[in-house]
Structure formats: structure tokens, C-alpha cells
């Protein structure tokens, strides 16, 4: 299966976050701070990470997310594991 493009990965990240945290998809922008936009804490961020790992069938060590708070960088970290 070909590797999805970064735009596709970013779109899937935004879709999954919107669906799980019940936020309208159109309110989420790639450069948003996901802690603020989704209103989540670190434990919920780990929950999001687990869902993303399952969705993309990857393992993404949480230390790679240190200091990451926007969807675009998160999607880039995921892309590097696909």
C-alpha cells in the first residue's frame, strides 16, 4: 500500500480528533494548539496518541511529542513512521 501524503495524514488526524473529542471538524485548523482547541490535558493527549497509533498502525513514542502542540507537527511525526 502506498504511503499516504502528508496532507492526507493531516486530514485524518484532524478527522479523528474532531470525532473523538466531539468538536466540529471545521473548527480545527492544522496550526491550532490541540491542547487548547480540544480542551484536553496530558492524559487525554495520551488517549489521542493511542487512538492515532491504532488508526495509523504505528508506534509513536511519546517523547517525540514533547513540545508538540499543533496538529501539523503531530501529523509530520506520524508521517515519519508510516
Amino acid at each position: 500500500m502506498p504511503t499516504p501524503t502528508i496532507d492526507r495524514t493531516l486530514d485524518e488526524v484532524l478527522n479523528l480528533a474532531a470525532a473523538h473529542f466531539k468538536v466540529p471538524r471545521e473548527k480545527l485548523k492544522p496550526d491550532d494548539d490541540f491542547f487548547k482547541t480540544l480542551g484536553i490535558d496530558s492524559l487525554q493527549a495520551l488517549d489521542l496518541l493511542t487512538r492515532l497509533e491504532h488508526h495509523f498502525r504505528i508506534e509513536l513514542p511519546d517523547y517525540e511529542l514533547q513540545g508538540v502542540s499543533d496538529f501539523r507537527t503531530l501529523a509530520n511525526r506520524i508521517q515519519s513512521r508510516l
Partner: protein
Amino acid sequence: MNEFKGQTLSWQMLNGAIELALHRDPCNEIGSLTLEELERFAAVLPGLVSEAHALLIHSTLPAGFSAGADLRELFQRGREMEKVAARRGVRDFLERIHAVMNALDAAPLTTIAAVHGVTFGGGFELALVCDIMIADRMARFCFPELRLGLIPGFGGIPRLKRDLGNSVVRDLLLTGRSFNVMKAQQIGLVSQIAAEGEALRVARATASQVGKFDRRTAAAAKAFVKPIPYEELKREIDIFCDLYSRPAVEEGLRRFVENEGPQPYLP
């Protein structure tokens, strides 16, 4: 005592299995009150064993199985007490929790951890004493102690070494990273994965299966295949106490406790 409802945990007998439920907000942090109630459970366990074929340990809280040791209590006690007394207090706490963990580990009935969500540090160590681990799809595991300048102190390293290859133990311990249930099953920690919210049901079904066998035979099989690494467990306490006395640990605990940012659980 077949039934108990405490402030941090409860137990009851259900269909021939003892169910130990953790319920201390926010995520079953293990401090002195939890320890007291765990000791109470360990004290009555020999009497319960004659009536039960299995022990299930689970959490009723949505956040997860347990976030581990109560770091706020550890930090606070370290600040309030004179250093020598604080160190003695830490050693006393560790020896007491090891006695509980060892009693659960050696209990002559089949023990099953049904975990979900955050299963970190001391919570992970509690799950590791069980014979079988059943995990919710959203469970996440971690030994974050090195971030604080410590090692796991509730028996985690010797029990991980008992169950896993050494290179895997090094990876989990030295990176302090959290990992999901797929990884946990792949390395051999988790025996069954349940859908979200289904770990306890799956654990109960497993306990029911276990109950079909002769109890004495099951206890003999368990004792044969599951040695308890007592010497390494004692050594772990010594290493933890040596590390705890360094100023870097107080600083690490302070950073965690005083962190009001969104990422205290991320390394």
C-alpha cells in the same frame, strides 16, 4: 471478610472469584491510604483463597487502572520531614508495599489484572504481580520513574525481568516511554486485548474458565512456573533508597508536582 468497601479500594466475592476494585480519584495514585487498604486485603486474602479460584484486580475510574505512586504525597512528605526520617519513611513504605505485592504474586489462586487507560509506574507494577493481564484496547503502559531520577520501586524491574527479554526491559526502562496495548501484547505482557470498556467482562470470562480446573492443581502449576525473585526485589528497594536521597530527585518531584502545563505525563 468477603466484602469490603474502603476509601481507595473495595473487594467482593462474585461467582467464586474475588474482585478487587480500585477507586481513588483521580487515577488510583498509590499513597499511604491505598497501601493501608491493600495491606488489609493482603491480610484477609489467605482466608478468602479457600472460597475462590481467582482474583481479579481492576479500576472503576475512567482515567485508567492506576497512574502509579502518589508523587504529591511523596514530595510533600520529603519536604515536611527531616531528611533521614524521610528516607526511613520511604524505605518503610517500599518494604510494606513489597510485602503486599509479594503476597499477591504468590497467592495460591489465579490472579488476573483487567487494565484500561493509564497503567503507569506503581499501577503497572501492581498489574505485573498478576498471573494474567487482560487489557482494554485503550490501555497505555509506562515506567516513567527515570524522568524523576528514580527507578520503579514497587517490584517492577525484577518482575519485568522475570516476564520479558532483557533488551525489552532496557528499552522500556531507559527511555521511560509509554506504549500501547498492541506493543504490550507483542512483547508478551498482555495475554488478551478487549474492546474499550470490556476488559473486566473478558477477565470475568477468563476467571470462569480458570474455575473449571482443580484448584490445588492450578496452584501447583502456578508455583512451578512463576518464581518470585525475592533477592532482586530486596535489591530494588536498596537502589531506590540510594537514589531517593539525592537532591535531583526532590527537584524532579517538584517539577512534576508543580507542573501546571498540559504535558506533565509526557516525558
